[in-house]
């Protein structure tokens, strides 16, 4: 039986989430050398292993910030509590004049007098309103999230975080929210989502609980690590190609790839394969990895909520789950 409190070093989580993206980044850096150093002795392999693991940690730390929060958890917890508004908007879309009907469609939404005052301020926010409408539209949202962000995300994450939707299964999320409020005496309007997610994670990280969410977290980490690794290698290649347009044959810019040599030299990968092939391959890895990062973030949050839900159900019924230590 695994002791859940023992430090778990180099487990599947570390291999998938840290080592593989780190090894990819290391490989990407090595092939930028004109003559890539190939390990031959055991200690060299060991050295590369340590470097790959370290680069993986750096890639994880960077990609964790660069991917933003995607706000899946935040949107889900909000949706379980503000669904009254959304539901009513749907009702309004499907029909008007249902006020006071007795056929079960009698839901209606009204704006309070304060809201009417707010509307009178109009005009000056037209530009931001247009941007918001674009980013909230179906295609605008997808263009920003899946086409633009994978390319610029690692640079712009300080100013802009991408935003995905909530998970579709709200009933478990709603009951989890109820349990959290009652267990920790939270205010109903709490918006400290990071705290809420940490409370759930801490509860789920228990030997009696199922921890399927952690597997998906590891897979998400793998993809986001691959995204950032591919992005950096792609950036190096772009930088090298741009160097051709810099005066003095790109020196010292291109000379950086010679690592001290005064002569301009080409990376091994550029000499070996057509640039367009390398470029296309890196872009494919970059876009696919980002797409899967977004997908598995959703899956992770969905299972994190489900794991917590099952954990509290087991607690109520006195059952012991078959989790990571069970």
């Amino acid at each position, binding site marked *: 039986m695994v002791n859940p409190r023992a430090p778990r070093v180099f487990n599947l989580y570390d291999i998938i989430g840290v080592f593989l993206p780190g090894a990819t980044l290391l490989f990407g850096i090595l092939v930028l050398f004109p003559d890539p150093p190939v390990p031959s002795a055991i200690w060299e392999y060991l050295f590369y292993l340590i470097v790959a693991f370290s680069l993986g940690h750096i890639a994880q730390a960077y990609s964790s910030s660069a991917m933003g929060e995607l706000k899946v958890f935040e949107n889900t*917890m*909000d949706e*379980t*509590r*503000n*669904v*009254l*508004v*959304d*539901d*009513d908007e*749907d*009702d309004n879309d499907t029909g008007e004049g249902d*006020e*006071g009907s*007795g056929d*079960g469609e*009698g*839901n*209606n*939404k*009204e*704006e*309070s007098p*304060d*809201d009417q005052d*707010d509307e009178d301020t109009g005009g000056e926010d037209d530009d931001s309103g247009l941007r918001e409408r674009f980013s909230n539209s179906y295609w605008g949202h997808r263009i920003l999230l899946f086409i633009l962000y994978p390319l610029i995300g690692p640079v712009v994450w300080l100013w802009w975080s991408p935003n995905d939707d909530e998970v579709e299964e*709200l*009933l478990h999320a*709603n*009951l989890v929210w*109820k349990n959290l*409020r*009652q267990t920790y*005496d939270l*205010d*109903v*309007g709490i*918006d400290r989502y990071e705290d809420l997610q940490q409370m759930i994670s801490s509860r789920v990280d228990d030997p009696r609980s199922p921890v399927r969410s952690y597997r998906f977290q590891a897979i998400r980490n793998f993809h986001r690590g691959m995204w950032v690794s591919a992005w950096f290698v792609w950036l190096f290649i772009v930088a090298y190609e741009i160097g051709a347009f810099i005066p003095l044959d790109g020196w010292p810019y291109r000379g950086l790839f010679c690592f001290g040599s005064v002569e301009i030299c080409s990376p091994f990968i550029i000499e070996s394969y057509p640039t367009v092939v390398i470029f296309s391959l890196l872009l494919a890895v970059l876009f696919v990895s980002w797409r899967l990062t977004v997908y598995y973030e959703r899956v992770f949050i969905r299972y994190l909520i489900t794991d917590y839900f099952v954990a509290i159900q087991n607690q109520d019924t006195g059952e012991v789950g078959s989790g990571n230590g069970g």
Partner: protein
Amino acid sequence: MSQRATKKFTVAEFDDEYVWLKLREGEKRGLQFAIPLDNGCQDELESLNEGEKITATLESMNERNTAWQCVEIQREEEENGRTAMPADD
């Protein structure tokens, strides 16, 4: 920016400060909302029983519409005796 909504609920549970109302209709039926006992309709809320069916008008307490307070409550029996919902107060 506050919103109001009138919905049909079942009284699910009471805890220390809140009553949990379970949405009875619509695509999202089954979701529960915590309504503070001491912030609007206090007497009516405290007189409710678990499992009782009501129609409640709720008003959001914050911009994100994640917290709601009671504006008006109608018990199922009262509602059945009326021909229409009351207008906005």
